[in-house]
C-alpha cells in the first residue's frame, strides 16, 4: 500500500470525462428557461429513469448504506423498502403533478403551490424554505466526496482542496449545460455506480468468504442480532423502521430537484412506466448491504462517523489502486451529479419565485436564463462556504432535509384530493410540521421510537385541515 496518485488520477479522468461527454451532448441545444430548468419537458424513459433514481443512488448509496449495514445490519434494509414504497405512491402522484405543471407551464417546485393555491406569498415562502434545505444537502454530498477523495489518495493529500476544485468544476458545468447536461451526466454516473455496487456486493463477499450466503452465515454466527431489527420502540427498531419508510416514501417526490425531474417528463405515461420499473433498481441496493456486512467481518471495530468509510477501507487495503480509483470515481460521480441537479433546482426557484415573481427582477426569457446560471454559481459558493464552516454538523442537517421536504407533501397531495384546502392551511401546516420535526430531530428525541418527521407530518395535516376550514382562509383557493 504505497501513496500512489493513480487512484486519484482515475477519479479525475472519470469525472472530467463525464462532464466533457455531457457538454458535448448538449452543445447544439439552445437554452431558454424551459430548456435550462426542465429540459424542454421532453425527457423519455431513460433520462427520467436516471433523474428519478438519482435521488437514491447518491454518495449515501456508497457510504451511508454500507455504513449503516456495517454498524447495525438490518435497519439498513429500510432504504430498499422506502424506495419501492415511494414508487408505489409516485405511480399515482407523479403523473398528476406533471399534468398540472404542463398545463400551467410550471418551472419550479414552488410554482406548483403558487398555481394550485393561487397565492404568490405561499410560492415565495415555499421557495425560501426549499432553498434553506438545499444548501445543507449539497454540503452533505461534499462531505461524502471528501471521504472518497481522502481514501483514494491513501490519506496522503489534502482532500479539502480537491473537493473545492471538483465542486467549482461542477458548478461551471451546471452553468453551461442545465438539466439536460445533468441528465447525460446521470447516465454515465449510473453505469459507474451500478458497476461499483455489483463489485462491492458480489466480488468482495466472494473474494473473502466464497459467496454472499457464506458471508451471511458468518455474520449469523458472530453477530446474529444484525440480521433482524431490534424489537418495537428500541433504537432503530421495528417502529423506527415502519415510520422511516413511511416518511421517506411520502417525501421522495418532494425534493426540489425531484419535482423538476417530474416536470421534465415527455408524458404522464413515461412517468407511470418509470414508477413501474424503478422498484427493480432497488434490488441492487441489497448488494451494498452485503458490502457493509462483509466490511463488518473484514475491518471490524470502526466507530462513529468512521463506519461510513468501512467498505472503502476494504477496497483500499486489499485491492490494487486502479480498483480503488474506479470505485472512488463512481462514488464521486454519485456525489457530484445529484449535487448538480440540486444546484440547478435551487438557483431556479430563487430566480423564478423570489427574484422574478416577487421582486420583479429578470422576468424575460433571456435575463431569466442568465440569472439562473449566475445563481447556480452563487448557490455553489454558498454550499461550499457552508460546508467549510460546518463540516461536523452536516449529518444532523440531513435530518433537516428529509424531515423538511416531506412537509411539502400534504400541500401537494391535498391539492388533488381535497378541494377545500387553502393557501393559509397549507402554509401554516408546513410551519407546524417543521416546528415539530426540526427541534425534535436536532435534539435527537424520538418518542416511542417513531421517526420525528412523521410526527411533524401529523401536526402538518391537522393544521392544514383545521385552518382550511376557518372562514378567513377560504377565498384564496382557486377553483381547479
Amino acid at each position: 500500500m504505497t501513496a500512489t496518485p493513480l487512484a486519484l488520477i482515475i477519479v479525475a479522468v472519470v469525472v472530467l470525462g463525464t462532464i466533457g461527454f455531457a457538454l458535448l451532448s448538449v452543445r447544439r441545444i439552445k437554452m431558454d428557461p424551459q430548456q435550462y430548468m426542465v429540459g424542454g419537458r421532453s425527457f423519455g424513459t431513460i433520462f427520467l429513469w436516471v433523474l428519478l433514481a438519482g435521488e437514491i443512488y447518491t454518495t449515501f448509496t456508497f457510504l451511508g448504506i454500507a455504513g449503516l449495514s456495517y454498524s447495525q445490519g438490518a435497519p439498513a434494509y429500510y432504504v430498499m423498502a422506502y424506495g419501492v414504497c415511494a414508487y408505489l405512491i409516485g405511480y399515482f402522484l407523479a403523473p398528476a403533478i406533471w399534468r398540472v405543471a404542463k398545463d400551467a407551464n410550471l418551472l419550479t417546485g414552488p410554482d406548483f403551490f403558487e398555481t394550485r393555491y393561487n397565492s404568490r406569498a405561499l410560492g415565495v415562502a415555499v421557495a425560501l424554505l426549499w432553498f434553506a434545505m438545499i444548501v445543507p444537502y449539497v454540503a452533505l454530498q461534499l462531505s461524502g466526496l471528501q471521504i472518497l477523495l481522502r481514501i483514494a489518495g491513501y490519506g496522503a493529500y489534502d482532500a479539502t482542496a480537491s473537493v473545492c476544485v471538483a465542486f467549482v468544476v461542477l458548478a461551471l458545468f451546471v452553468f453551461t449545460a442545465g438539466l439536460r447536461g445533468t441528465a447525460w451526466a446521470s447516465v454515465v454516473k449510473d453505469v459507474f455506480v451500478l458497476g461499483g455496487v455489483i463489485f462491492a456486493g458480489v466480488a468482495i463477499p466472494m473474494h473473502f468468504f466464497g459467496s454472499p450466503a457464506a458471508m451471511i452465515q458468518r455474520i449469523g454466527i458472530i453477530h446474529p442480532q444484525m440480521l433482524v431489527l431490534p424489537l418495537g420502540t428500541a433504537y432503530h427498531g421495528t417502529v423506527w423502521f415502519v415510520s422511516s419508510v413511511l416518511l421517506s416514501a411520502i417525501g421522495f417526490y418532494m425534493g426540489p430537484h425531484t419535482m423538476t425531474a417530474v416536470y421534465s417528463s415527455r408524458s404522464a405515461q413515461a412517468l407511470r412506466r418509470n414508477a413501474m420499473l424503478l422498484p427493480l433498481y432497488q434490488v441492487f441496493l441489497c448488494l451494498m448491504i452485503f458490502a457493509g456486512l462483509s466490511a463488518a467481518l473484514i475491518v471490524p471495530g470502526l466507530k462513529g462517523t468512521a463506519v461510513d468509510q468501512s467498505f472503502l477501507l476494504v477496497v483500499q487495503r486489499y485491492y490494487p489502486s486502479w480498483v480503488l480509483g474506479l470505485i472512488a470515481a463512481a462514488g464521486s460521480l454519485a456525489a457530484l451529479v445529484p449535487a448538480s441537479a440540486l444546484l440547478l433546482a435551487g438557483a431556479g426557484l430563487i430566480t423564478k419565485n423570489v427574484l422574478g415573481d416577487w421582486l420583479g427582477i429578470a422576468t424575460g426569457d433571456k435575463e431569466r436564463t442568465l440569472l439562473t446560471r449566475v445563481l447556480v454559481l452563487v448557490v455553489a459558493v454558498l454550499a461550499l462556504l457552508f460546508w467549510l464552516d460546518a463540516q461536523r454538523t452536516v449529518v444532523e442537517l440531513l435530518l433537516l432535509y428529509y424531515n423538511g421536504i416531506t412537509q411539502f407533501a400534504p400541500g401537494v397531495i391535498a391539492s388533488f384530493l381535497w378541494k377545500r384546502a387553502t393557501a393559509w392551511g397549507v402554509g401554516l401546516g408546513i410551519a407546524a410540521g417543521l416546528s415539530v420535526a426540526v427541534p425534535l430531530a436536532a435534539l435527537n428525541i424520538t418518542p416511542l421510537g417513531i421517526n420525528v418527521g412523521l410526527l411533524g407530518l401529523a401536526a402538518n395535516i391537522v393544521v392544514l385541515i383545521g385552518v382550511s376550514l376557518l372562514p378567513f382562509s377560504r377565498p384564496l383557493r382557486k377553483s381547479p
Partner: protein
Amino acid sequence: MRLLLAAVPFTALTFAVPFVNRDQPRIAGIPFLLCWIVAWALLAPAFLWAISRLERHDA
C-alpha cells in the same frame, strides 16, 4: 380497486415488517426479512403493471 392493489405491496413493506422480522428460515442463505423485502421489491412492478392494465381497460 387500483389503490387497493397498490396498497398490498405498500403494506407488505411497511406495517407487515414487524411480523416478518426474523432471520429464519433463510432462503438461499439470505435472512428471511431481507428475502421478504427483496421479494416485494420484485413483486411491486407486477402490481403496478396490473393497475396499468386496469386503467387501460377503464379508458
